[in-house]
């Protein structure tokens, strides 16, 4: 399993933000994207996850291999922690939620309505969903927002377990996760220069 991205160009709101992005991540590896706000990290991750089309370039894996976690956690406030997780386990066909609960220490909260969780606990629930998907490529956008030190360590542990199981991870983050083996890719050199889109969509801009 290897994720090869070559010469990828992405746009947000019709404006190209990144171009010529090339990297490759193989099984057991994590790649951290760095760059200032607005440089296109989220757009790149959404494109890799298959949520929006690329302007050009190739993503070497089909979208069925990706599990995506964005800024919002997709948590339903009126459902309990168990119901929230079990739903995603059923949708992804993996069935079991115990490893995810253990990885993010959610056993004590299992019957609480998710709306009653703190921001950090919600984030942990959102990240536990990644374990439940059972997919090899984790695409994570700022996964550590509102997590405390212990939870960040918990998250790093979950990523390590995932990598050890032959998975790979692609994430955008500003803080140090304590993942020494992760490679870092700076986004600034890939900033797009050409501002015009000359295609069907471009006619409407």
């Amino acid at each position: 399993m290897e994720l090869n991205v070559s010469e990828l160009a992405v746009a947000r709101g019709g404006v190209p933000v990144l171009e010529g992005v090339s990297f490759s991540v193989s099984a057991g590896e994590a790649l951290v994207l760095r760059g200032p706000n607005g440089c296109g990290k989220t757009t790149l991750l959404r494109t890799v996850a298959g949520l929006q089309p690329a302007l050009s370039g190739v993503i070497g894996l089909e979208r069925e291999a990706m599990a995506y976690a964005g800024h919002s956690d997709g948590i339903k406030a009126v459902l309990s922690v168990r119901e929230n997780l079990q739903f995603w386990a059923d949708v992804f066909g993996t069935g079991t939620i115990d490893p995810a609960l253990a990885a993010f220490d959610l056993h004590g909260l299992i019957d609480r309505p998710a709306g009653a969780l703190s921001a950090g606990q919600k984030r942990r629930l959102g990240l536990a969903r990644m374990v439940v998907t059972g997919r090899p490529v984790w695409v994570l956008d700022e996964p550590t927002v509102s997590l405390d030190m212990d939870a960040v360590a918990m998250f790093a542990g979950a990523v390590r377990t995932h990598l050890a199981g032959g998975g790979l991870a692609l994430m955008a983050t500003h803080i140090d996760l304590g993942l020494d083996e992760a490679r870092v890719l700076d986004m600034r050199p890939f900033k797009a220069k050409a501002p015009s889109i000359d295609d069907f969509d471009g006619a409407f801009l």
Partner: protein
Amino acid sequence: MIALLIRDIRLAVRAGGGFGLGLAFFLIVVALVPFGVGPQSALLAKIAAGILWLGALLACLLSLDRIFALDWEDGSLDLLATAPVPMEAAVSVKAFAHWLTTGLPLVLAAPVFGLLLNLPGPGYGPLVVSLLLGTPALSVIGTFGAALTVGIKRGGLLLSLLVLPLYVPTLIFGAEVARRGAEEMAYHTPLLMLAGITCGAIALLPFASAAVLRVNLR
């Protein structure tokens, strides 16, 4: 897919989900009409079928913006799009869940509300059959409208403007079935037309809704 159906029904029934809201709205519309028309039971019996259909249609409209807007706000729509469920199937399941929580209760309650409007005796059967056949089309068309307006803040009004014209054929034939039934006339032709509209909507619109959602998620 069954998981998605169960989740949507659960969300609708739990606090703030809006289950029963459509039904209560239907009841209020139906209860207000006699006040507006005045105490003329003959006139009421004449317009009952149309009023019941109009009330059911408006009640259906009330909960449409919840189909995708809530999932969009909390990010689950993005996650659903990356899940191993085809978007067309997810859209169909959501429309079905909407029908189960909104359309079906309206169908079951319509005979009771018919009493309030002095609906003539022979009209009850055709009324229930026409609603049973017509409300799935309302849910599917409404899901398409909801997919179009997802991501627009306070898109409810725009949604109504988009969806109500699309409801016209269903309303025409549905109300016609109920009216002819109440007047003891043959109602097979409008019933077949109604069934055709519903089948066509169910067969075609999920593809349109899924395509529109994919564009809106970019």
